[in-house]
């Protein structure tokens, strides 16, 4: 999936409103659709098979994680069947017979058996601990040739910055290239989780945390926020795409402003910085929807009305506390982007909003 596709959809001359929604949704969902993990798993309905319990094994240590899980599964199953089997058997065999309340005398302690059933399980547990720790070292200690990607998490979106400075909000990786993520949060706790990689690490404001893995399989995987972070926690998902080659990845991460139209540049800024809280499908979210807002007279929380023009957009981005739309108060939930988006960036956003509005006009 490259950046071209949503733009192609956006430029289609289609007056169907339904179609517009689909197109804007494809754009606002940060681009890529993540397929069911069952479609990219070897897929089975047999609960005794590894594949039943897990997404595809997309990282170098996923297989080991799954192996330990299934080992514990089988050990547990054997013990559980034995315990419940014994329980049911005893309840049937020793069920109280009419009128005879007292059982036959039998022993009520046996130190040897107590030791046996304490020591034998202990040995199994030591093994489980050891295997778990061994794989975990692989999951925590990066290889020397790992590339470093910066992860910035915020309520409620992701930003990835690559070694060459490119930025995206989906994570683009190269197969067989180990990666070390250096992660920071702009606000509260978040957590990086890609189930297909079996890797997870919290993102803690005020410090850096690290996650490491080596992707071994091409594909598109779900990347979810895994530490509750507020209203949009369930929506804080994006895609992790593993490319076959470095070149293929570069085509997807590079962005040369001068080669793109203002609309495309504005759309990209929207996706990276705004899409977490503002939708373009008409739905209100943490912030107002943006697809129809250009040129409208918006009602503010103090009862006044503001025209959404260039100046309004600049104010909203740099000084968000100035204009709070009715229903989104009492205080602004939006941080200022002054210092992050310069006036040129604001121009691009204005171009984007204008054209979104025009497209919806075509659709009427």
């Amino acid at each position, binding site marked *: 999936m490259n950046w071209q596709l949503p733009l192609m959809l956006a430029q289609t001359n289609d007056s169907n409103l339904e179609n517009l929604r689909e197109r804007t949704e494809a754009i606002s969902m940060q681009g890529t659709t993540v397929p069911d993990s069952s479609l990219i798993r070897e897929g089975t309905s047999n609960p005794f098979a590894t594949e039943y319990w897990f997404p595809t094994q997309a990282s170098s240590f996923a297989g080991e*994680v799954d192996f330990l899980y299934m080992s514990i599964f089988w050990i547990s199953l054997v013990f559980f069947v034995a315990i419940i089997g014994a329980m049911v058997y005893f309840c049937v065999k020793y069920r109280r017979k009419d009128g005879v309340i*007292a059982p036959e005398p039998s022993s009520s302690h046996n130190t040897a058996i107590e030791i046996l059933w304490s020591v034998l399980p202990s040995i199994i547990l030591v093994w489980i601990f050891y295997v*778990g720790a061994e794989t975990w070292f692989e999951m925590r200690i990066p290889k020397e040739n790992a590339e470093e990607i910066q992860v910035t998490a915020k309520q409620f979106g992701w930003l990835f910055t690559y070694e060459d400075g490119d930025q995206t909000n989906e994570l683009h990786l190269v197969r067989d290239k180990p990666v070390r993520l250096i992660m920071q949060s702009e606000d509260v706790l978040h957590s990086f989780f890609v189930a297909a990689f*079996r890797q997870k690490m919290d993102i803690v404001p005020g410090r850096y945390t690290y996650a490491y893995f080596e992707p071994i399989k091409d594909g598109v995987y*779900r990347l979810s926020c895994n530490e*509750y972070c507020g209203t*949009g926690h369930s929506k804080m998902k994006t895609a992790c795409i593993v490319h076959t080659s470095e070149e293929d990845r570069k085509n997807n991460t590079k962005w040369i402003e001068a080669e793109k139209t203002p609309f495309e540049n504005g759309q990209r800024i929207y996706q990276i910085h705004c899409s977490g809280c503002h939708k373009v499908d008409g739905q209100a979210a943490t912030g107002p929807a943006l697809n129809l807002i250009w040129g409208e007279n918006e009602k503010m929380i103090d009862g006044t009305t503001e025209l959404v023009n260039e100046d309004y957009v600049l104010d909203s981005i740099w000084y968000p506390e100035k204009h709070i739309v009715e229903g989104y108060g009492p205080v602004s939930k939006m941080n200022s982007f002054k210092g992050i988006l310069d006036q040129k960036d604001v121009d691009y956003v204005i171009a984007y909003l204008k054209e979104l509005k025009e497209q919806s006009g075509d659709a009427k």
Partner: protein
Amino acid sequence: MVDASTRQKLFGTPETNFLNCSKGWKSWAFTLDHKRIGIMYLIGVTVALFLAGVFALVLRSHLFTFDSTMLSDDMYNQMFTLHGAVMVFSFIIPSIPAALGNIVLPMMLGAKDVAFPRMNLASFYLWIIGTGCLLLAILSGKGLDTGWTFYTPYSIDTNTGVIYATFGAFILGFSSIFTGLNFLVTVNTMRSKDQGWFKLPLFVWSLYATAIIQVLATPVLGITLLMLIAEKTLHIGIFDPKYGGDPVLFQHFFWFYSHPAVYIMILPAMGVISELISVYSQKRIFGYSFIAFSSVAIALLGFLVWGHHMFTSGQSLVVTLIFSAITFTVAIPSAVKVFNWLATLYKGSILLNTPMCYALSFIFLFGIGGLTGLFLGALSTDIHLHDTYFVVAHFHFVMVGGTLTALLGGVFHWWPKIWGRMYNDFLGRVGCFLVFSGFNLTFFPQFVMGSRGMPRRYASYDPEFQIFHQLSTVGAFVLGIGILLSFVVLVYAALRGPRCSSNPFRAASLEWQSSSPPDFHNFLQTPVLTDPYDFESQVYDEELDTYIPREFANPDKVAPRKEPVHH
């Protein structure tokens, strides 16, 4: 030599008992009787269970479809938070100790009451006030959306009723501490003459071990919550990185209490199961001293494993390894209990009535809960499973499949003693079946969702998980119906059930030597000290249709013992 009229006086249905000896709301509101306090606690925690249960049904209904709009995301977040907070602080932690324990513990010691009856009443009122304060978060209109764990910095930033809720939990903490302190002193000082530690029922051992945890761990939570309030209001800079604080420090403080707290939840439950299994097999519990010591071991080891909730928090490699290793050690005493219960069933004389069905249900459900803990204790698998539905399923198996199941079993078991009336056993077992099957349907699919990558605390999710969520939602309603049915059976029995005798099931612990219901003073004369698992010490008396100690029986009608008295 004891005559028939004495037997009737001691063990027959009494005219005056602790329920009717004084009337009017004040005689309950200001009572010092541990039995009445226990009943008030039982009513209170049942209300909390139903309220938090409704929140659960609401959120499970919302989750029926993957992109449901039944609730807004904010409202969903509030539902799971309030469900967790009310269940943990107002229901599960007090449930068995404060409701069942209060009623039964002093009587198991042959005592008239707990060591500090006024502190006991105070503990109940603290529960009322604490729960009220927690509910103020809702009643004030602010709600609560932090998760029951109150992680920072979100709990600092959010405008919801965090201060009401944490202050409520703080007060509830004192309720718990007072109960624990009371029980420690009661067991230490008020045992019957010659009733040594190894002549105590295992329920007493479990309450004692629990009380140690309540007294030592709860203050840490109290201080932590006060610090959170201080951070929110005064910006003292301990948890908020904006002021130089460390968000992970909150997690350490929080889990230092909250992990031992789960042993507060499960140890008394295991104590109840020991009583049920032995009485309904009519066999001395197998491995008594191993079970007794395992309770203490679990209580102590439970203080050393809190970091296993934080393997992905960014804590150091070294402590992560240590916490994982010690976590595995806690598994062994729990497994030992399960094996000993099974050995008790072996060659027993097993009665499959309602309490016993709950006890067997416990072994099944706690078995799964405990075994799934192994996946979470191991480091490589935990990284994948942490904060997914796998964890949600695991802790519900141990808390609901464990504690709630044992609570229901214990309530049914001691219900005839409290009210002098018998429950409808058939309907009781139907309720148990609905609870068991509803519970499994609700939570087993969640293991699969979790390992497949479904995160917890999500209001909407990827479509592939929908079928599991739908099974889970249906199960939740079946579970709810089962609990409701059990509640109806119990209330009906208390009010209109057929009269029953002082010891219908031939139990041997001392509380069964009182009448049903017991006298205000518990015992009309000092009970005969029997070993609590020496069932042959109790013989059948035809006139009273109950089991009484040999010493009180008509010697002409008593068969000799098959086994000598156990030493």
